[in-house]
């Protein structure tokens, strides 16, 4: 038994903010033993902040688009799976989600996830532009068929849930439609984005998948994109829905440049639609590679880029486009502000998951906790851009408790991962211990201790133990009646056996790395 003694425990899931002890046994948080002094190891955490290991909701960890980004970054510093795992672990994030597993590339995605060290992973299978789903909806095969198809997809791809990125839009892009709004119809199917979203939300709910539908809406980054996001919220009709990367939908068309912050509208709509959770990933300035499973958006972005990868898959596809976010650029300044505004305007931390590249997260936490740090950055940005934003007027500062919520408790709850993001008895002993510092960026960049499954993996910036985590998956009960339809469909259209991309329970020569997450009932 390990004892973490006398730290300030910040555990919003259990309503705790108090000085106290934590006990770890067999990789889990344990009840205090009769004799606390008998613990085999004890860490004196007086003056330290103790939180659950972080949960990164929207990682961009693995798969063909990560490969494309690596190729394009070859002359800089391409990321490796080892680097990804280390980067998360080093800042105390112990679970990360690949939010766009492309079913046809499920094997490679899981092979890569399996090679990411330290942390636990999970993937969300991407649907919504694939012929099978569009056909099932368009030809009105009914809810049962769609449920079956989703269940089958989860099983084949060993995913935790379902995601959709620009539903219908990537399919329409193959038909040369360069923009696709919520009510637009995919040529050839007669199905609108609304219908796809409604079908997926309903089916995910009926299957009881741990996370709600993880939706990246249509028309991101454009002026007026907030309307699309609000349309999606309304389409959910009270059922759980998660809107991913919501900062890309916080734009209006006001001002001389026709591009402005509309985060207030989004935040107001969110306050009303309590069934909707979001993740927001405020951006940093500097060089970056835009990764996405949305080929339409990636092609739009490629204009002016020196090099870029865009590909059409059977469903989504995607691409990677390197660029640079510049402090002198009007649009980039607005985009930066909107990401932070949304976090600051959303009152309910339980419906907000903070997401960012691990290298960026500590800086973003600082901006959220420290209005002066924001003001410093605002002062460097174009004044006309800041005039079209709310950020200069927002003085909210996140507390440590709220940070614990949006980086731990809320994402775990949104994902349906009951055993993490919290420090209650029986929870997975994923724990990050930070030394309190005035500079929050420094504080969150370098935890004193990180425990994964009760094992000390990072101490004062040094790796103490290498380990490979689990990949979390759901196992919904599906009727399986779709199999024969799919077999016929894939053979006729694609000339392949349905499920040729299936991921086995264990890869060759290895033990199964999967951990099952119970479905909601």
């Amino acid at each position, binding site marked *: 038994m390990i004892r973490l003694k006398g730290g300030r425990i910040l555990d919003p899931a259990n309503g705790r903010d108090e000085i106290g002890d934590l006990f770890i046994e067999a990789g889990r948080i344990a009840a205090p033993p009769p004799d606390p002094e008998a613990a085999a190891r004890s860490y004196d955490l007086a003056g330290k902040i103790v939180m659950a290991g972080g949960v990164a909701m929207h990682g961009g960890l693995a798969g063909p688009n990560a490969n494309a980004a690596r190729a394009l970054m070859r*002359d800089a510093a391409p990321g490796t799976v080892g680097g990804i795992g280390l980067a998360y672990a080093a800042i105390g994030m112990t679970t990360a989600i690949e939010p766009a597993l492309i079913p046809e590339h499920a094997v490679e995605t899981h092979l890569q996830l399996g090679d990411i060290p330290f942390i636990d992973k999970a993937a969300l299978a991407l649907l919504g532009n694939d012929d099978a789903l569009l056909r099932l909806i368009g030809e009105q095969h009914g809810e049962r068929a769609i449920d079956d198809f989703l269940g089958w997809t989860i099983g084949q791809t060993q995913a935790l849930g379902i995601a959709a990125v620009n539903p219908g839009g990537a399919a329409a892009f193959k038909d040369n439609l360069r923009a696709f709004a919520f009510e637009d119809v995919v040529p050839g199917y007669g199905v609108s984005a609304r219908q796809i979203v409604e079908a997926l939300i309903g089916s995910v709910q009926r299957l009881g998948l741990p996370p709600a539908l993880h939706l990246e809406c249509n028309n991101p980054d454009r002026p007026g994109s907030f309307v699309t996001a609000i349309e999606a919220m309304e389409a959910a009709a009270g059922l759980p829905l998660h809107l991913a990367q919501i900062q890309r939908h916080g734009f209006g068309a006001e001002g001389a440049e026709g591009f402005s912050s509309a985060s207030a509208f989004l935040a107001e709509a969110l306050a009303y639609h309590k069934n909707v959770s979001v993740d927001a990933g405020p951006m940093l300035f500097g060089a970056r590679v835009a990764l996405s499973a949305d080929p339409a958006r990636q092609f739009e972005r490629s204009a002016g880029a*020196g090099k870029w990868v865009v590909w059409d898959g059977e469903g989504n596809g995607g691409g990677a486009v390197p660029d640079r976010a510049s402090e002198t650029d009007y649009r980039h300044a607005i985009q930066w502000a909107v990401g932070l505004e949304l976090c600051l305007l959303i009152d309910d931390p339980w419906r907000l998951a903070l997401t960012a590249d691990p290298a960026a997260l500590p800086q973003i936490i600082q901006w959220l906790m420290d209005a002066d740090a924001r003001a410093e950055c605002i002062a460097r940005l174009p004044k006309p851009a800041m005039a079209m934003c709310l950020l200069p007027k927002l003085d909210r500062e996140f507390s440590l408790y709220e940070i614990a919520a949006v980086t731990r408790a809320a994402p775990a709850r949104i994902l349906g991962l009951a055993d993490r993001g919290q420090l209650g008895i029986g929870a997975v002993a994923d724990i990050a211990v930070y030394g309190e510092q005035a500079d929050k960026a420094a504080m969150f960049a370098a935890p004193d201790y990180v425990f994964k499954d009760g094992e000390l993996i990072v101490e004062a910036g040094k790796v103490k133990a290498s380990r490979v985590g689990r990949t979390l998956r759901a196992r919904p009960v599906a009727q399986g009646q779709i199999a024969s339809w799919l077999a016929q469909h894939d053979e006729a259209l694609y000339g392949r056996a349905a499920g040729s991309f299936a991921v086995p329970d264990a890869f060759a020569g290895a033990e199964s790395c999967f951990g099952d997450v119970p479905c909601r009932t």
Partner: protein
Amino acid sequence: MSAMIFTLRFQPEQRLDLSCLTADRLDGLSEKEILALPVSTTKQPLALGELFRVTMGEPGAIRIQARYADGLDNIGLGMRRGSIVVEGGAGAYAGRRMSGGSLTIEGDVGPFAASGMTGGRLRVEGDAGDFLGGPRSGEAQGMSGGVVVVTGRAGARAGDRMRRGVIAIGGDAGDCPGSRMIAGVLAVFGNCGERPGTLMRRGTIVLGGEAAGWPPTFVENGAVELVTLHILATELKDALPPSHLAPLKGRVRKLAGDMAVLGKGEILRLAV
């Protein structure tokens, strides 16, 4: 103060990485520290002092005395100032990413000389290998500044994806000189191989002799005298013999291309 001289005593069983021999890297180092600099390119470690005799001097003026065919890599890698003279040949990546100063190789150089160079002067008094001034595989752009003069021949793809600067080759060039050029000036005073200027977007290729084969997407645009080539002659007047440069001041035939892509480049043929 006098030059700092490095004399190779014997040829080792591996290539050497001599990127440590630049003014910036040597400044402020003691002789002992210099002798301990690693030059190995395999897992068998080698220190500079195991192979070279060092005469201490001013790191801003380096002389490398070595007859080791093409085994000395990365000479002048990233150099920003000072001068380096190699009495002998150099291997791959000579002058790669250099941004200032002057590097003179008195013999031949291997592939990727002046790769990614942004400034300074590289002079090769022998032949150069493939991809002179080009990007390393996987990099988005080649040379983007500075002047390269090769008095002998150059290999294939000289000036590949070049963006700025001047490359002058006194002798012949291999296949596809000026491939994918973005801008800049590449002058080949001898003949060249197949398809000069393939996929060039902008930029200028000067060709003194014949090409072994032409891309069909360069179109004839008349014969004129061009002041621009007078400027090039001035730039090169100390670097190449007057007999090479004289035709630059005469009439040249202009080919525009590559029409397969943007088509804003030109191949200027001398002595027509």
